[in-house]
């Protein structure tokens, strides 16, 4: 398989993740879509690493996995806090961050 095949799959995953982030109102699912986008980026790193015969791409992918773990921990804690205060995990609860005077 050539690198183009792998990169096409990576782009597809990234696009699906992006659509999910914008389309879904449930914060948990939007968060999972972000994980999908990260995985698409990861796959392209690893595909290029194989293509160039250089392990640096794999190291980048490794640190992205660590980053995703940290991000998931903090993000889910924020969602739990939000659910406790607002009783909802819909992204519309963030609307009260909006400036009431201006808009």
């Amino acid at each position: 398989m050539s690198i183009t095949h792998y990169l096409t799959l990576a782009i597809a995953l990234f696009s699906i993740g992006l659509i999910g982030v914008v389309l879904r109102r449930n914060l948990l699912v939007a968060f999972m879509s972000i994980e999908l986008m990260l995985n698409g980026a990861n796959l392209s790193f690893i595909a290029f690493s194989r293509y160039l015969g250089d392990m640096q791409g794999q190291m980048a992918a490794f640190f992205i996995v660590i980053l995703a773990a940290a991000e998931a921990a903090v993000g889910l804690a924020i969602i739990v806090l939000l659910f406790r205060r607002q009783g909802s995990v819909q992204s519309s609860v963030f609307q009260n961050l909006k400036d009431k005077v201006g808009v």
Partner: protein
Amino acid sequence: MTILFYILSALAVLSAVAVISFRQPVYSALSLVVTLFSLAGLYLTLHAEFLAIIQILTYAGAILILFIFIIMLLNLNKDELKEQTPALWRRIVLALLGGFLFAGLWWGVKKLSGDSAKLTEGFGSIASSGKLLFTEYVLAFEISGILLTVALIGALVLAKRRLNYLPEEKN
């Protein structure tokens, strides 16, 4: 190899679409597990054994468990899961945007050609990854340890009940 790639990538794309289309977050999380496992299989075909293991251990293991745990902790009721279906024009615009993104990136990608480089002995193995991590990338490695500690403390502080500086809670 070719047939394996097509099976795994079809599985990955289908389950990725399932992630963003299921109404119940638990089903989305389980579909995400399928995506992550098929990606781990694809990493194996790219000679990234170490990352395939990390993918299964960290992503499909730790992160997804965290997701499912939070979903069960929140215990969302039926009303809460009900989302307004976005208007048709918004869905069409979004699908077009996603399609354009895909087409644009693919247009750049398809020019890449030629064969892959010859691989050195032990490419992607745990031994060579470990050697790189503890020599060239040792600073980044230590910093990511600090990052994880900070994230742990941050998550604890955020999720802890009844902090003095927060206004009183609803229930």
